[in-house]
């Protein structure tokens, strides 16, 4: 049970990353590799500030802004210098590796004994339900503070989703969506699409960096290697969510990204929990994701089949 709660928590934290990737990949159709650098950038900036004694919430906010700056640079490189989006992302991601090393001063910052957002929640849990309290949920015993952490992450993600949903309904948000869908049309309406792309990629990387900062605080360290592979998994989460929910309206796609991210982490947890050979972990994960992708289609196919049979009868 605590594994289930832990996996959902990690899934929710990484849902911020999925939301970021949803903005760049789905809204702007911009395959943005900056993500692998800005994820670490958020973690390293947040960790460095927390170690320096900055309030962890402020540190997380600064991480968001740092990610936005990184994204803006990718946007500028792409729009102003007409460099292919993939290459623009690669350039910034590569540069960020060095910047992250400088920000941290070394390749790894431990946060085990620092005060983070999550230690606040733990302290709150200790105060409300008692130190090291345990709760029993349908027979499984779990640490109460894990439940508090889950609740906090859920509320935080819910808030971000609402903000994002509201934002994409505003004028500027609508213009952004239009830029991705049909840039000629929106340009004809007098919107500067270049600025839209820069702002959008910045926003996207802001979320990614925030996700990195939260994960660093959750796991107790920031490491310069932690961004590796994040882009692919974030993308997988977005697409899993999309295919399961199968609705293109903004609200649904946002919800899909979050559900996809959590589902993806649950699938990894199942693969791990079954104690399979670690060499096979990735192939098992791939198979799980494949099943998750085709299952809705299969169900629909069966339904159609039964309907047809019904008609013949």
């Amino acid at each position, binding site marked *: *049970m*605590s*594994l*289930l709660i*832990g*996996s959902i928590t*990690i899934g929710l934290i*990484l849902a911020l990353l999925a939301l970021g990737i949803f903005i760049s990949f789905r809204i702007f159709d911009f395959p943005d590799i900056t993500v692998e650098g800005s994820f670490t950038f958020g973690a390293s900036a947040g960790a460095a500030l927390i170690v320096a004694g900055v309030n962890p919430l402020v540190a997380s906010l600064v991480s968001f802004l740092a990610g936005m700056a990184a994204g803006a640079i990718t946007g500028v490189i792409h729009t102003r210098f007409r460099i292919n989006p993939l290459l623009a992302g690669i350039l910034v991601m590569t540069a960020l*590796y060095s910047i992250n*090393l400088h920000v941290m001063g*070394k*390749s*790894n910052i*431990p*946060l*085990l*004994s620092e005060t983070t957002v999550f230690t606040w929640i733990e302290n709150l849990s200790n105060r409300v339900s008692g130190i090291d309290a345990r709760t029993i949920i349908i*027979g*499984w015993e779990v640490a109460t503070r894990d439940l508090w952490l889950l609740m906090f992450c859920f509320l935080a993600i819910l808030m971000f989703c609402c903000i994002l949903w509201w934002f994409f309904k505003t004028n500027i948000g609508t213009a952004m969506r239009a830029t991705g869908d049909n840039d000629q049309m929106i340009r004809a309406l007098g919107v500067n699409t270049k600025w839209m792309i820069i702002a959008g990629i910045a926003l996207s990387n802001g979320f990614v960096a925030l996700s990195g900062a939260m*994960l660093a605080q*959750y*796991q*107790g*360290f920031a*490491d*310069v*290697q*932690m*961004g*590796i*592979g*994040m882009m692919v*998994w974030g993308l997988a989460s977005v697409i899993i*969510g999309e295919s*399961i*929910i*199968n*609705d293109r*309206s903004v609200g*649904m796609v946002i919800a*899909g990204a979050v*559900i996809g991210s*959590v*589902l993806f*982490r*649950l*699938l*990894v*947890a*199942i693969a*791990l*929990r079954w*104690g399979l050979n*670690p*060499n096979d*972990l*990735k192939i098992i994960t791939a198979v799980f994701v494949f099943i*998750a992708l085709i*299952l*809705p289609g299969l169900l629909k196919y069966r339904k159609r089949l039964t309907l047809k049979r019904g008609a013949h009868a």
Partner: protein
Amino acid sequence: MKLRKLLNGILALVIAGSILLVSDLENRKGKPEKAASPSENAGQHAIKGRIYKIGFTYFAPDVALDMTTKGLWEGLKQLGFVIDSNLLVISQHANGEMANLQPIHLNMDSQDVDLLLVTTTPGITAALSTVKKHPLVFTFSYTPLAAGAGKSYTDHLPNITGVGSFPPVEKTFDFIKDILPDARRIGTLYNSSEANSVKVMEEGRKRAKMKGLELIENTVINSSEVYQAASALCMKNIDAVWITGDNTATQAIHAIIKVCRDNKMPLILNDVDYVAEGAMAAVGIGWFSTGFHTAPYVARVLNGESPAKIPIENFVEEDISINDVVAKKLNIKIPDKYRMGKNVRQKPFNPPVRIAMVHYVFSPDCDDVTTGILARYKETGHIRDKDFIFDEYNANADVGTLNTVARVVADKKYDLIFVTVLAATQALVSKISNVPILFTVVADPVGNGLGKSYNDHKSNLAGIDCMAYTDEGLVLLQKYIPGARTLGVLYCPGEMASVSGLRELEQSCKNKNIKLIAVPVNTVSEVVDATTMLCMKNIDAISQMPDNITIPGFSSMVKITRKHKVPLFCYISSQVEMGAIAAIAGDFVQQGREIADVSFEVIKGKSPSAIPFSRIKQIRTVINPQAASAYGLETPKAVYDIADHIVKNGQLQKNELPTKKIQ
């Protein structure tokens, strides 16, 4: 309609969540707790609501005593006596003066305590003559009977019981004869007013004679005389120094270590806890186990049982510990049977021990650690899946998976967790606080927040750092190239272990007044260019530390350095096999074996908090003469003499040359 689509997503989550829960059924609390079996030693357990008080006296603060008390408190904790909660300890020591022993025991006797815990043989004597009101339990004593505790282990004074630990004297002489076949005269030093030492010396003289050795004795009265007495002893044409657990001598152990170092004299002790401080070896007593073993004695007397009915016991967990760095300096070869301590079959674990092995990435060094651990378990007679269950996890370099792995491992309630690499250790430590975690392939654990110092760290964490022996490595390098002034190295700025290693190497170079040029590499594909660049910088040699970039890229380093005739030295033996000239090797397989040994202690019940972080203990000199000539260098005779292994045609072979005789 939209809501229905959203429900689809939630349904998927519920399905996945349920699958996860079903796999987790065994952890459900639904089953009733195992009823506490009526133990035959019911009197050993703490009675609820009662506060116990112990008076504790000792000779002076001391590392070995610390280990004993750590073991004792741990043992008592398992019986329900928790310090500062239901167990109060009043302690007092004699400041290392025999004359103070009587007054402190008198004082303790007037305190309101349930029992007096006394340590050391002179301490027992003093307690027996002064303590009238309280029962006595002793530990940390060689010869309680010589102290006057009784005629025999069963027929003893009515107010005292405890655990004695007579040192393995015969084993000590066997060991000396094995490592120094030519030794004849063994010097020793003790305080003749300590009954324990007198008794040990009696035994020592007898055993020495049987083994054809001569025991040269020097006596002291207090610890301030030790330095002089030790110096005088070394002048007496002796071959080695043996110091038993004489309280006076151990108080001044650092003086003895210094004298022996200055006179190039092998120092063999009976206290393993001082080996790390610079003694050459110890054939001794694992004091933690003695303390742990004493806990039931203390518990029974605390609960009111009369000591008269509890027989005294002699308990020794023999433990051979060798300081390889010192042995190397003295050019002493340690026979294989002492390698890795005692190679006896451990007791089979029953029920099987459940072990998790957690890696962050797939890499040769981490694989080597696993190999070493499994090899060591096999050597000690443990059968996989019967005596222990060994589940491997690898986060595949993905930090999200790493966190899930930490969750899974926490959830599956393992008895013991091995972990490699800093990030994985951190991820586990932040989630798990009640299962022992043993790390390897972590450099500088203290600098990276795993503990305040090597001795003071998280209570469920212990491990072996992977720092290379750079000082020794440079000494070896200079034997090949005496005039080396500038060295080069590749390092990976993104890898903590590599950066910490670089810092060590920089320091070692500074001490030797050598200039170090360090070139960063971030991916394996950069190794070729970086090595070429390094070779252009007019360096005398490369002293390469192992890291996750240069390990996979090492063969290209060999190729390029050979082209430029820049000699390449390293710190792991597999790289010497691949064509580097020589290494002071602290291999990862060896790290695995050593951490496996640590795990045996933990399985036996030792708390990781009592196990300091350590550096790899066994290092080997590995040379490759063919590679040396490929670089245009000749392997000096002196290096042949000290090498443990020689690589011939890419194969590692033991060096069979006779060891150099010690002057």
